[in-house]
């Protein structure tokens, strides 16, 4: 403490000294009533102790220490009984324990109020004692019994009670997409299995790099905002790749080849392969890929009705995500290219 603080506190300290000779502290509960309590008893509570020493309150009825709202007169008298017993240094541990056991024999309502009041006065030993008592009440009882004792509302639906707890920070869209992804991945795996069984001969992708470049650069102009056309082009690319054995491997090969290229669209499409959330791409792949087997034509005309329904229902979410992500990259690249 600095010199200034010491100088400021001194007068109050004198007041406290004189108050100590009187040895009564005035406490005011939330309802306005004031009680006079013996000083040793009241000082057992850290919060009251703090008020007296740091702020010099409680010496008379005018500056009575106002107690927190959770302490009503009934609880205050209980707490003071507790303090009165325990602040005497002469009691043995056994005596204290048996006092505690008798002390907490009260109905549950008062026990809860007492816990709350003791906590607001920062009287930790009493909080521990009451918490233990409450734990003993809860232990081993069925939920219905516990609800009855504490008057808890039974407001969980039957479904919620049986369901495992959900993570509260879940994003419903991600969950939906993950579910879709899992389903489609399963289907893809099954299709893979079938393909492997057929013993297809491996067909290398023998398009040259130049071809791919022209393919990409040629499409750059009209792909900026057009969802449908974008998906068409994507589909075409997918269609081409479908000719080779596995989709994922070839896409990855393309990634490697096209890595050095500066094309916005290319990096947008290819780069997204490595994004976490763009498992979407796979989902989309799978949705489109399944139709490609049926037909070589333009996707919009040939969509399997069932799948189309699925796409309509869920696809907008995927495409929206996809589109937003692509836009982000596009604009970022623009920034890089045009500092």
């Amino acid at each position, binding site marked *: 403490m600095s010199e200034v603080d010491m100088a400021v506190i001194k007068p109050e300290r004198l007041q406290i000294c004189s108050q100590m000779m009187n040895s009564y502290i005035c406490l005011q509960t939330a309802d306005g009533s004031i009680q006079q309590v013996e000083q040793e008893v009241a000082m057992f509570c850290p919060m009251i102790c703090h008020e007296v020493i740091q702020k010099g309150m409680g010496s008379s009825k005018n500056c009575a220490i106002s107690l927190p709202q959770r302490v009503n007169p009934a609880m205050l008298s209980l707490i003071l009984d507790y303090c009165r017993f325990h602040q005497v240094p002469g009691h043995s541990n056994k005596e204290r324990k048996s006092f505690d056991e008798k002390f907490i024999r009260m109905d549950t309502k008062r026990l809860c109020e007492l*816990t709350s009041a003791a*906590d607001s006065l920062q009287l930790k030993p009493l*909080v521990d004692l009451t*918490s233990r008592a409450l734990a003993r009440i809860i232990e081993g009882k069925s939920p219905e019994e516990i609800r*009855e004792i*504490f008057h*808890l509302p039974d*407001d969980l639906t039957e479904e919620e009670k049986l369901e495992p*707890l959900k993570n509260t920070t879940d994003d419903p869209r991600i969950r939906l997409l993950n579910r879709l992804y899992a389903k489609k991945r399963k289907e893809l795996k099954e299709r893979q299995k079938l393909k492997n069984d057929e013993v297809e001969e491996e067909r290398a992708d023998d398009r040259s790099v130049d071809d791919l470049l022209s393919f990409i650069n040629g499409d750059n102009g009209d792909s900026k905002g057009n969802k449908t056309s974008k998906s068409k082009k994507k589909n075409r690319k997918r269609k081409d790749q479908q000719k080779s054995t596995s989709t994922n491997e070839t896409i990855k090969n393309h990634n490697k080849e096209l890595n050095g290229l500066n094309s916005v669209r290319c990096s947008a499409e290819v780069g997204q392969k490595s994004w976490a959330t763009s498992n979407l791409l796979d989902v989309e792949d799978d949705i489109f890929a399944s139709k490609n087997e049926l037909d070589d034509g333009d996707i919009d005309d040939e969509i399997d009705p069932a799948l189309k329904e699925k796409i309509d229902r869920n696809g907008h979410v995927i495409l929206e995500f996809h589109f937003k992500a692509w836009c982000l990259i596009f604009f970022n690249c623009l920034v890089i290219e045009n500092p």
Partner: protein
Amino acid sequence: MGDVSAPDLISDLPQSIVESILTRLPIRDAVRTSILSSRWRYKWATLTQLLFDEKCVISSNDRCKVEDSLVKFITRTLFLHQGPIHKFQLTTSHLQCCPDIDQWLLFLSRNDIKELVLELGEGEWFRVPSCLFNCKKLTRLDLFRCEFDPPPSFKGFLCLKSLNLHQVLVSPEAIESLISSCPLLESLALSYFDSLALTIIAPNLKYLCLEGEFKDICLENTPLLVAMSVAMYMTDDIAEHFEQSSSCNFNRFLGSVPRLERLIGHIYFTKYLSIGDDLGRLPVTYVHLKVVELNQVSFEDMKEILVVLRLITNSPNLRELQISGSSNTLATIDAPDLDFWDDERPSDCTFKQLKLVKMTDMSGVPHEMEFIKFLLANSPVLEMMSISPCVYVMDGRLNMLIELLRFRRASAQAEILFIQD
């Protein structure tokens, strides 16, 4: 179902109190509070102490079933938990070496674990995964029946205060480097180690508990040691090693523990201390030593008696002394070196604070009786001396009593209690 309009008694309590209540419940009851009401759904999920044992699951005679349900319960609880986990305790005799435990430890290492207690079953010992050594905030580690193998890049647990390894397979170098690389270590307990030669360097160590077959223990740097309890088992190897040892064990063990307050020795501890020559007495005074308990002291070995005497004569503030004997022969009249007590016994030593002495398993051999005589004559404030004869001694008891009667007592208030079972 009770008064619907009655106010909810407990859900409004602050989260700290709710957690304090839930912590005092067994983990199963705590998790079950999630179906009490909508407000209680997640109150348990932020508990920072998770203590699991077999009471978490329904017991049955089928061991596999119990194991399975315990594993499922713990995995689900961890999965649904939110926030840091400060204490994790698993006590079970069923699980031994289970891949799920590795995953739990990985999860805990990412959640600021501070206290970890793993007490697993007999059988194949669990090999501690490397993720345990990444738990930077660990303050307490208790392992029972595990294999512990720190990687070479391990720099120590910088916050570790308490280490308890019981039946743990670990190389001696690893143990030594582990102890010396935990600068804040205050409490160390090693039990059931085989043939270990240990040098302990722990500047903050206060409590030490060793139990096992130790070849050699050297407390090289433990200036703050307050209490220690040592039990040394003997095997043929160790006995041979003792024969050949030349260093003075007393100095190596008790040479630099000036703050020692309690010393407890079991089984062959006194024998261990008696080995080695005392190269020019370095009298260390144990100013704070108040309680000494030495078990299985053989009063037929002069060297052990000398150890005991050296210890108590250098402890001016000794208050309580408890010695249990372990003599193989029944009381005989002749014993070698009996004139030690007349000629060479330490003179000018008064036990100024000694108030309580307990001698148990006394067979009445001459040296025992001389020792008791010595104590009685030099303890001016002695209040109580209790003597319990060994159960095998039936005939010698009367002789013991007759001798006891003759002894001079320096303290007028001394009570001698002869306990007959």
